[in-house]
């Protein structure tokens, strides 16, 4: 977190200097008039019965809180530097069961353990810089991404180019992104060396517990993506966009702490907890092709329709369709409410098996229900307050907007979740 704060301070000082150098030039309307600061926060909780850490059966209780700050700083007339930094702090009952034998609670996939893997914090910083041409028809951008959590770290970078044409009625964008990630695997406790020596006398079952597990040799995961976006204004009240991504991932795409139980192997337990036959094994590459379309239509000054559709295909056998609508309704000059609904459906990955169905002779297998066949409904509402004149001021900081969103999510595989989001946007004059 210290590094993130340092980046914000140094970035801000550098931008102030650059801004002063440009004061003598002739006046051009800036891409961004003032520094903007956004403070965002979300709270997420979920519960379900198909935890992947415990092989597709067990509690999925999880809570996650994410304080985030986004600072956008104008640099001269044509450039904007953005620093996006935040935390994601979670506690997870299923992750706690990487080691369910804490000696305090009975070992069970339905009971949270008090071990170290019960909680973790992901911290990240995403700096980005964009440059617009004087006629504002060409925009170049570059970005970087750094994130870290106990068992995972990532470095990313990317860039993009956007061209506006036809009196800014048409927009064509291309971009690319690379993530270079690395796992610090936390295998289920029973798959670690020395386990049977310590717990051997507590194991129940027919025969001797001999899991098939071999630690992963490859711990890196690289992701490469290219995107193409086309937006078009059709009328004074209607516009649409189409975006297509092409994604290639290679390396360790399995999650090392997710257990799998085989149909052709004996079952072994300590208390009520079944010991893993292996960790999930997934192919070392994956191609993804998502194609999304958005439309927005203004019925009148008060009511707008926002729609989104996506089709997704990947080489693991998942095909999915997403459709969502949001209808913002202005109830006064400053307040807008918006009900929203999202529907999602996917086919199962060809490597997905429910608990005790995969065979030890299979090459790839997982019991992660996120890769199973399901459909999901998400519905909620949002309220936003906007004051373009920023009349509420403290010193040189004016409040521009406040946003709140709430959504409830229900998956056909027993998972339920709620998510709240709260955001404040300030202008620094």
């Amino acid at each position, binding site marked *: 977190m210290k590094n993130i704060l340092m980046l914000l301070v140094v970035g801000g000082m550098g931008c102030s200097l650059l801004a002063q150098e440009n004061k003598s030039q002739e006046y051009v309307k800036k891409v961004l008039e003032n520094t903007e600061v956004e403070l965002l926060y979300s709270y997420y909780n979920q519960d379900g019965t198909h935890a992947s850490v415990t092989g597709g059966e067990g509690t999925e209780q999880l809570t996650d809180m994410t304080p985030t700050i986004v600072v956008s700083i104008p640099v001269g007339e044509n450039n904007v530097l953005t620093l996006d930094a935040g935390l994601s702090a979670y506690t997870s009952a299923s992750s706690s069961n990487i080691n369910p034998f804490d000696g305090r609670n009975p070992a069970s996939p339905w009971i949270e353990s008090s071990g170290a893997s019960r909680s973790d914090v992901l911290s990240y910083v995403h700096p980005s810089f964009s440059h617009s041409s004087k006629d504002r028809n060409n925009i170049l951008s570059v970005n970087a991404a750094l994130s870290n959590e106990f068992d995972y770290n990532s470095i990313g970078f990317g860039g993009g180019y956007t061209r506006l044409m036809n009196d800014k*009625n048409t927009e064509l964008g291309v971009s690319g992104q690379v993530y270079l990630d690395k796992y610090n695997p936390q295998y289920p406790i029973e798959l670690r060396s020395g386990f049977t020596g310590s717990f051997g006398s507590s194991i129940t079952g027919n025969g001797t517990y001999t899991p098939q597990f071999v630690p992963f040799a490859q711990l890196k995961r690289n992701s490469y993506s290219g995107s193409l976006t086309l937006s078009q204004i059709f009328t004074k009240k209607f516009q649409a966009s*189409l975006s297509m991504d092409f994604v290639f991932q290679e390396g360790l795409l399995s999650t090392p702490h997710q257990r799998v139980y085989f149909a052709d192997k004996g079952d072994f337990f300590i208390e009520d907890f079944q010991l893993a036959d292996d960790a999930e094994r997934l192919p070392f590459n994956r191609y993804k092709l998502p194609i*999304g379309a958005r439309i927005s239509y203004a019925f009148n000054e008060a009511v707008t329709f926002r729609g989104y559709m996506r089709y*997704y295909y*990947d080489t693991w056998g998942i095909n999915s369709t997403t459709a969502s609508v949001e209808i913002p309704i202005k109830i006064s000059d400053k307040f807008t409410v918006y009900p929203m609904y999202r529907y999602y459906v996917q086919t199962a990955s060809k490597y997905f098996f429910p608990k005790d169905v995969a065979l030890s002779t299979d090459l790839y297998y997982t019991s992660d229900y996120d890769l199973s066949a399901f459909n*999901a409904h*998400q519905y909620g509402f949002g309220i936003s307050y906007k004051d373009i004149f920023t009349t509420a001021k403290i010193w040189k900081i004016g409040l521009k907007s406040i946003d709140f969103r709430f959504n409830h*999510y229900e998956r056909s595989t027993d998972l339920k979740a709620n998510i709240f989001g709260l955001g404040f946007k300030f202008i620094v004059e």
Partner: protein
Amino acid sequence: MKKIMLCVLGLLSFTSCVAVREYEKVSLNDEEMKLSSKDLERFETNFQIYREGSAGGNGGKTGGGCGCN
């Protein structure tokens, strides 16, 4: 795939004949008309990337950068 190509061609065919002037874009410039996710939507997109097998096609992450898909 044919449907997608038709959509792209449909969009491209409009690029040469439609020209809404800047002063006519009052409705289009409204914050609610933006053809992108809202700032707060990032958190929903993030949990969906974890809880669903697919990602991308929405201007958000397409994979990588976290232990999700």
